[in-house]
């Protein structure tokens, strides 16, 4: 048993923290306001290897493990939640399924572009009428010669408006229910593909969240991930991995809120003393710090399970995502509370953090879905 980070994880944490605090944190309020996708930051992160953390060096990545990826995502999200999820999606929702489920040719073709930041990745699963219920999706892909012809609409796609490479799910055989879903890699400039409405979101506002439209999009046969019908399995396996990173994102956002709250509570005076002297404020701070630490350990443990090569770690991943999201919403709420009225003003970071945190309970499987995953493991 050992809770110490390894030497390389410690260095990664140190350098990513410095980078994120100097280069990303100052931009966070700005891009929250403007909604501008942080391309310049992404280019810098690509240089450091943060866009391909788990990708082996031979495909242009950094070759780190999943705990390390979680550490990086936590530090990035602590500085800027939007940038955190953009990077998480590129890593665990795009490079990961390509790395895990595609042919050598596809890996060689797409991974270097995703690692270098030449192109950003996105993950197209959700549809207007299919969210939690993945199998309700309406998109289809039918094989015609050397190509699949993809039709359908995806909704709420993070990075959607700016990505160059999409992992997309569609039915190749509707009769087989979820066993008829397949996964594809689709390039942005394929004819028939277009980006639709840009979502005006409550939080993580700089993530180019868009609708994707597919009208007879011709995708080369080789761009199928795994085999026909593997889509659902690929999707679930990928989400297991990416949920660890959403947990990490939650820990980062919560930590940022705690940092702000502690600082403010020492500066703000009421009834003749700093408010941190009041027991009820102390209680809030103690709760927040404890919740964050518990969440971080769950996240690191889920990453550890994956790194150890555990075949099934859905429960651990779901626990980390569910708990970390839950406490992130709670911690940011408390941070606003500690700020009093100022916390409700855009002048203070906690206002943004509170808005940013809410999404954690929704995407990559709502909290309800996480609980279903956890409970089914126990009751099945």
């Amino acid at each position, binding site marked *: 048993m050992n809770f110490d980070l390894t*030497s*390389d994880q410690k*260095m*990664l944490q*140190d350098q990513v923290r*410095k980078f994120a605090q100097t280069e990303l944190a100052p931009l966070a309020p700005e891009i929250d306001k403007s909604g501008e996708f942080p391309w310049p930051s992404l280019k810098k992160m690509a240089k450091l*290897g*943060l866009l391909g953390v788990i990708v082996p*060096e031979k495909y242009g990545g*950094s070759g780190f493990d999943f705990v390390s990826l979680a550490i990086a995502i936590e530090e990035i999200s602590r500085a800027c939640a939007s940038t955190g999820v953009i990077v998480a999606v590129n890593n665990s929702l795009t490079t990961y399924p390509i790395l895990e489920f595609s042919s050598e040719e596809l890996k060689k073709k797409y991974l270097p572009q995703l690692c270098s930041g030449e192109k950003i990745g996105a993950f197209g699963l959700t549809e207007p009428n299919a969210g939690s219920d993945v199998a309700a999706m309406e998109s289809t892909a039918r094989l015609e010669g050397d190509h699949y012809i993809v039709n359908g609409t995806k909704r709420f796609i993070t990075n959607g408006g700016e990505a160059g490479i999409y992992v997309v799910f569609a039915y190749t055989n509707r009769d087989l229910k979820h066993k008829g879903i397949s996964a594809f890699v689709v390039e942005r400039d394929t004819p028939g593909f277009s980006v639709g409405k840009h979502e005006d979101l409550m939080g993580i506002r700089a993530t180019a969240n868009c609708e994707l439209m597919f009208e007879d999009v011709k995708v080369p046969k080789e761009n199928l991930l795994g085999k026909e019908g593997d889509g659902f399995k690929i999707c679930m396996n990928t989400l297991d991995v990416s949920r660890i990173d959403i947990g990490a994102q939650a820990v980062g956002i919560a930590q940022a809120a705690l940092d702000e709250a502690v600082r403010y509570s020492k500066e703000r005076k009421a009834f003749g003393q700093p408010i941190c002297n009041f027991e009820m404020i102390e209680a809030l701070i103690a709760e927040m710090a404890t919740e964050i630490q518990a969440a971080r350990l769950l996240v690191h443990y889920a990453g550890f399970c994956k790194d150890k090569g555990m075949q099934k770690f859905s429960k651990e991943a779901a626990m980390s995502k569910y708990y970390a999201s839950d406490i992130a919403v709670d911690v940011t709420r408390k941070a606003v509370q500690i700020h009093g009225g100022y916390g409700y003003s855009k002048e203070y970071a906690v206002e943004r953090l509170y808005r940013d945190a809410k999404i954690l309970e929704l995407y990559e499987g709502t909290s309800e879905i996480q609980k279903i995953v956890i409970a089914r493991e126990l009751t099945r």
Partner: protein
Amino acid sequence: MDLIVCLKRVPQTAEAEVQIGPSGKEIVRDRLTFDMNEADSYALEEAILLKEKFGGTITVISLGLPDAEDTLRIALAKGADHAIRIKAEDFGELDGFKTASLLKDALVNVKFDVLLTGCVATDDSLYQVGPVLAELLGAPHATLVGKIEIAGEKAHVNRELEGGLIEHLEMSLPAVFAVQTGINEPRYASLIAIRRAAGKEIKLLGKDDIPSEHRVNSTLEKLFVPPAGKRAEIMTGTADEVSARTASLIKEKGLI
């Protein structure tokens, strides 16, 4: 080109409260964060830039406690090839002179063309280690260096003087340069480089390796909080209130 960089891990005190410990001679360390001394990070970057231009190897060395190895490792990740820690825990009270003497003993067999240090450390504000080390090693030195250009055996070096004036020198190598901040733009280590650095050895030198006696030039008697000088009149209230008062103050002075 063989390069040596001396690095120090120091507490980050610009924005922190610094408290004096029970002995009255040391500060309370646990609430502070520690990192590479600011000027040293520029010295390291300068060495990396020289290596990128001329090839060669970089040896980084730190006289410090075990956590200085974290700083050395970051230096390895950024581009250094070898790292040495002199175990500060073995050598008792240090000052600038003793630090330089120990560094000299550790480096006496390490060949170099350019040895870089920061011009000053933010914790003890001594400005000593670079020039004393140069003297002990018998190499010429320049402090407050803001630019280094190397052509063959010669280096053209700019020193920063008061008032923004620059002193341009021609020096021969090997030489010791104590680097001023702002000379370059220190990089972050990439993840790949971090992974490669993780396994690298850090050579440890303790009192068995450096047995000779080293004197100090000065002994710390006590630390104390500086006597309050003329204190500013602190305005209190909300941002709105203090701003209003400040604005009318400026107006009273006839400046608006």
